[in-house]
């Protein structure tokens, strides 16, 4: 080894999470699911809309969680994939008259392609360099969307208005409630698929790469393929979330998909607990409601309150909601005895 080379024992980006600890037990899952089904029946339309956004962001956080908690790569650029998904849905619905439900898989596939392609150069980067490259992607995206070249399709700075779908078959529920249940079904489907993905052979390959890349490749894992695959899957799910977001908000514009969104999603993952899939919902609630609460405490100080809360989370519960859940579980266990 030459003298100029530097040898490091690089700390891994993410602490290892055992596979079993990634999900909730069946009982708890059913309780959460029950709550999610019943909740909108007692709420006003505005709160139903907020719950819908909660599920949508939870999906995006989940996607990031698969990338980071699963394969150990991390991304500050999820807002870019979210934007591509949102624009795909909006353009398909408004310019081509495609049914809203059909636009979601298309958005997912297109974003999977984008993510897979972006994963190619990202292969050579790790840790902080990857954070930087994806950060760059997130910053560039709003400006690319504003380009005059695409303006015919994207509506440029003004963006596009999306029509809100009615409940089908003449069901007697409001548009907001219908959209909520539609989102819930999509979210559950993707959640189950993600859990199964992480438990599959591919999931084990992701985790092997996360824990030790060189050892994984020595065991015969195709590191390049699985790393790009993780990027693709994550981007695909984020794209579906983006499409749903566009339908729920009824509007897409470049300034809705700035770096702030990417950072929010990243924080949602940290707060929920990296590698713990149910944490995505907790993290998503954090990024949706905490800024509102902070703003009600003091207008203008919301950023500071947000930051201080985040520091508290990092210092007191570094593993996020997962840690709280484990402690709660132990307490319940003691009570039973």
């Amino acid at each position, binding site marked *: *080894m030459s003298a*100029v*080379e*530097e*040898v*490091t*024992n*690089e*700390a*891994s*980006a*993410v*602490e290892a999470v055992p596979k079993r600890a990634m999900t909730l037990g069946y009982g708890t899952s059913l309780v959460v699911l029950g709550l999610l089904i019943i909740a909108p029946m007692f709420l006003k339309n505005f709160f139903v809309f907020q719950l819908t956004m909660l599920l949508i962001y939870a999906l995006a956080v989940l996607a990031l969680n698969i990338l*980071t908690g699963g394969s150990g790569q*991390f991304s*500050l650029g999820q807002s870019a994939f979210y934007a591509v998904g949102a624009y795909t849905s909006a353009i398909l619905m408004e310019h081509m008259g495609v049914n809203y439900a059909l636009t979601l898989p298309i958005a997912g596939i297109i974003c999977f392609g984008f993510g897979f392609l972006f994963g190619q*150069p990202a292969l*050579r*980067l790790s*840790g*902080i*360099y990857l*954070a*930087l*490259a994806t*950060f*760059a*992607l997130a*910053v*560039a995206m709003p*400006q*690319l969307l*504003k*380009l005059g*070249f695409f303006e015919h399709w994207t509506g440029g700075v003004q963006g596009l208005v999306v029509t809100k779908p009615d409940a089908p078959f003449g069901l007697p529920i409001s548009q907001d409630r219908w959209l909520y249940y539609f989102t819930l079904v999509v979210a559950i489907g993707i959640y189950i698929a993600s859990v199964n993905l992480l438990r599959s052979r591919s999931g084990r390959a992701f985790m092997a790469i996360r824990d*030790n890349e*060189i*050892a994984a490749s020595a065991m015969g894992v195709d590191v390049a393929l699985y790393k790009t695959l993780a990027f693709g899957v994550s981007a695909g799910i984020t794209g579906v979330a983006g499409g749903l977001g566009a339908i729920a908000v009824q509007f897409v514009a470049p300034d809705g998909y700035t770096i702030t969104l990417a*950072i929010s999603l*990243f*924080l949602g993952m*940290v707060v929920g607990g*990296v590698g713990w899939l149910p944490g995505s919902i907790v993290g998503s609630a954090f990024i949706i409601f905490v800024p509102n609460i902070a703003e009600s405490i003091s207008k*203008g*100080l*919301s*950023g*500071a309150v*947000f*930051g*201080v809360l*985040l*520091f508290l989370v*990092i*210092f007191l519960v*570094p593993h996020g909601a997962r840690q709280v859940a484990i402690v709660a579980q132990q307490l319940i266990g003691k009570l039973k005895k």
Partner: protein
Amino acid sequence: MELFINQVLAGIATGAIYACMALAVVMIYQAIDHLNFAQGEMAMFSTFIAWQLMQWGVPYWWAFLLTLAFSFAGGIAIERMLFKPLAKAPILTNVAGFIALFAIVNSVAGLTWDFTIKQFPTPFGSAPFLGSQLISTHQAGMIGVTVGLLILLYLFFQFTRIGLAMRAAASLPESARLVGINTSWMIALGWGMASAIGAIAGILIAPVVFLEPNMMGGVLIYGFAAAVLGGLTSPLGAVVGGFLVGVFENLAGTYIPGVGNELKLPIALALIITVLVLKPAGLFGRPIVKRV
């Protein structure tokens, strides 16, 4: 031809600022192996302090020096209170910490000084430099201050005991500790210096981009691009990278059709990604070997 020279000189002037930011980024990266995403906000806050001092009637250069002292102390305080406890945490936790710091500083500055755009004075004036139309005195001043700062830093790191100790602590912490260097305080010192260098960058660029809480967003990204281009492990590389990015940005904005002002930022980012892919260690960085 005159347009070309003009653009190159303007690029060198803004490049000087990127070089300062990149230098600040590299100082902290050397010390703790993390990129400080809050560097730009820290610089912005320092610039506001300088502005406030001047509003209170402190003369420019005194305000400048007081701000540097304040930023130095502030940098050390942030390291001691917030990031020393995180030293052993995973990268992810640290990134979250930097983002939290970013949000806090940005919001406190906005609350204290509000979001209206403020004029910031320049000590050099904005007349053409030495009667030439190519460059203004402020731009020349920016280049001059940066070059002076670089020489000072070079002398500090090459010829003083503390400079040597800091280099030792950055390159081989364990061995440095064995010969009696207090590595923990060397890291804090690195934070303080990075914060002060950032303050200089902020004060110099404020007359150009105007003073407001979000002023450093773009500058920080160019600073990152510069640091990556030069190599995150090399202060010299950061400086060269800064000037290169400045010139490249200006030339691309002028000569590549369809780029203009709007696409300048994505250009810097494309540059980051290209360099990372072709030569991950940067132009002057050392390649890193991983031990299994």
